[in-house]
């Protein structure tokens, strides 16, 4: 266990180092000049643009810029946003909980919609219920997030007036308003995942329902729902849970688009705006923190497998 943990921990720093080089390098490939964007309507003055380039070290060689950033990073400083002049670490700390809340709510939506639909579809195989569930699943997979978002804003907010069309209120400030502002984006974000979960639940349930132990349970005279929920579902859920875990990453990347549509000021919106404004320190900071999150989550998953699966421990 100690050796396994040590080797995994030892991989984190080189991984993050490689990520930092890749991010820095890719960013340099982006067309556009940050100095022109920052200068805004003063970009007509070449002296101003030259002055900004100098102050941001944009006129220095790329390796020098990278080493300067790395030096700051090693001193715990992610730098300042060029556009907002706010510390990147504060922006990250401000936005990460927003996306985490959105993703979590989306995941809950995905599970409470996808899993029951998958069960229903398998149990009522080749009936109208099955066709309906499959159609909803296909709809969820095919429909573009931005389109669904705009339509929901139009219907739920403008026509019906039920929910605010966009924005965000932190949970700590007012949990009711917070839910009101996040329920629509969470539904839109969770929609595609719900469809995936539904299809996987359905096929896993179909396999489980054909197993001998299910036949035995039925032969014992148990009610159909007990057979489905206690015997078949419990086994069918194992691959579904694994898949659900994997989809958490998809939710984080999906949040980029959803946050744009609903103007939710989360991680995704932060990085998209930073890209459009060529705010390099923010892009670097966000990508690095995201990479760190993935690495840590992977490590936690591996450790859980290690604890759960005796064969891994033996190996």
């Amino acid at each position, binding site marked *: 266990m100690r050796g396994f943990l040590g080797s995994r921990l030892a991989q984190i720093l080189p991984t993050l180092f490689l990520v930092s080089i890749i991010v820095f390098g890719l960013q340099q490939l*982006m*067309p*556009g*000049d940050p100095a*022109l*964007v*920052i*200068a*805004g*309507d*003063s*970009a*007509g*003055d*070449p*002296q*101003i*643009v030259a*002055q*900004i380039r100098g*102050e941001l070290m944009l006129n220095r060689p790329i390796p020098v810029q990278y080493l300067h950033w790395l030096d700051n990073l090693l001193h715990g400083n992610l730098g300042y*946003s060029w*556009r*907002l*002049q*706010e510390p990147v670490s504060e*922006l990250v700390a*401000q936005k990460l909980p927003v996306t985490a809340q959105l993703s979590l709510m989306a995941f809950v939506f995905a599970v409470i919609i996808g899993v029951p639909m998958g069960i229903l579809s398998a149990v009522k195989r080749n009936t109208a219920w099955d066709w309906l569930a499959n159609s909803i699943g296909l709809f969820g997979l095919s429909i573009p997030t931005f389109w669904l978002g*705009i339509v929901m*804003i*139009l219907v*739920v*907010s*403008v026509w*019906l*007036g*039920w*929910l*605010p*069309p*966009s*924005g*965000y209120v932190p949970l700590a400030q*007012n949990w*009711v*308003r917070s*839910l*009101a502002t996040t*329920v629509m984006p969470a539904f839109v974000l969770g929609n595609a995942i719900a469809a995936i979960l539904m299809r996987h639940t359905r096929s896993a349930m179909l396999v489980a329902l054909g197993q001998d132990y299910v036949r035995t349970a039925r032969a014992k005279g148990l009610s159909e729902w007990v057979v489905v929920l206690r015997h078949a579902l419990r086994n069918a859920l194992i691959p579904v849970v694994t898949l659900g875990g994997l989809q958490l990453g998809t939710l984080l990347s999906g949040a980029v688009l959803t946050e*744009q*549509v*609903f*103007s939710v*000021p989360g991680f995704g*919106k*932060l990085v998209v*705006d930073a890209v*459009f*404004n*060529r705010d390099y320190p923010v892009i670097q900071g966000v990508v690095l923190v995201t990479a760190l999150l993935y690495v840590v989550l992977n490590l936690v998953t591996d450790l859980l497998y290690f604890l759960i699966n005796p064969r891994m421990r033996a190996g």
Partner: protein
Amino acid sequence: MRRTLFAAAAAACLLLGAAPRPASAQTLRIGLREDPDILDPTLGGSYVGRIVFAGMCDKLFDYDTKLDIVPQLATSYEYKDPTHLILHLRPDVSFQDGEKFDAEAVKYTLTRDLTMKGSLRKGQIGAISAIDVIDPLTVELVLKSPDSPLLAQLAGRPGIMIAPGAAEKEGPKFGLHPVCAGPFSFVSRVAEQEITLQRFPGYWNAKAIHFDRVVYEPIVNSAVRLANLQAGTLDLVEYIVPTDVPAVKKDPKLKLAMSDSLGYEGITFNTNHGPMAKSPIGESADLRRAFELAIDRKALIQVVYDGLFTAIAQANPPISQFYVPSVQPRPRDIAAAKKLVAASGFKPPISVTMIVPNSPDLLQAAQVIQAMVQPAGFDLKIQAMEFASSLATAEGGDFQAYLIAWSGRADADGNTYSFLHSGFGFNYGAFSDPAINTLLEQARLTTDIAARRDIYAKMWIEERKEMPIIYLWALSNIVGMKRQLMGFEQVPDGIIRLQGMYMAN
């Protein structure tokens, strides 16, 4: 069962939606088209930032609805001679932290603009060589040479006065907690979410303010901005896209305010900037004039913008006091355009590649232009590009033609000098004409408006011979708001001034 479920969902939504929020009569919520940059008038460069400053910071001068310069923190001015400008300041004004506004504060602010690291204002007031405090309410600005646009600059961002004590204490972080002498003081900002201001009770013009708080919300997607206005979560949206105008007009709860804007859209050609200038359209003024003759501006505006913009052939819009009425767009004339193409010596089809920032309306406009110029012998290729990339591409001279807008300035110098004078940043095509340079410099040195307009009239005659830029249309300010929101005065610069606005019951 299904009905119960639906009712339960609806009830839950209504419960969430009906959660308590501040009364709209006390709080004015304004939708912005993007998130402003740093809220420091010395360091900021975004257009929407100016809208937030208008709620927070008064300037030495301001513009009225006719674009005349009117007093704000300065009550009057006088030129002792063309290089000595005397400003008389408003008495009994204090900053939002209680610090007194006086001549020393003016000197501090302007000196900060001229010297601070990262200042974007240096060039705008670069003509100032000394700032002398005559008495607590009088300042004298000594200029290196006469500079007619200076007053206009003092009605813009360089004229925003900040509290010296707070600025000194915060240094480069002043923009995170700005302190000015405007109607509302800064409360908080959550980047990309909202900027909150609250009424400053000590404001010198407090009787003109009728809201307790103002919240600015950046919403990039125009459809979502409109949805917020329709749903009542916003009271005012500073820019409604032309295609959304019918929806606002149809909504009985909403109203529109429309006026000519100072901004314009035009096509800049690369006439002299690197190897890309060696193209037929870059080398031949005949071809550029033919290109213009092939465009029917009014039809283009009608198709793409529902006729809401104004066709122009100069950088200053009709509302400007520098507008030259004799410089009008010529009607589309394909026969004349073909003659010019023939006279150019280049054999059609003339290939032209135009960079277009990647927005749906501009791409549509480019497609209409593409169809219009084709019968005159042009093969126009459209190169869609994300905005920041297009700026860098143009700045590097890697283009033949570039469809680009300018937000516009009240003073003509801000719409012409950087774009047409050799060696300046917005002159992407490196166009250079000694006669135009001389006229632009003359206009800067001349303070009389009528005399300046005459100089610009001569300059436009020269410009239209060479046509480095085809001016297409003047933009419009289209503001959407709740019907009961009263007292809004629309100034052509598009900045939302909060003085006088109130919510009728």
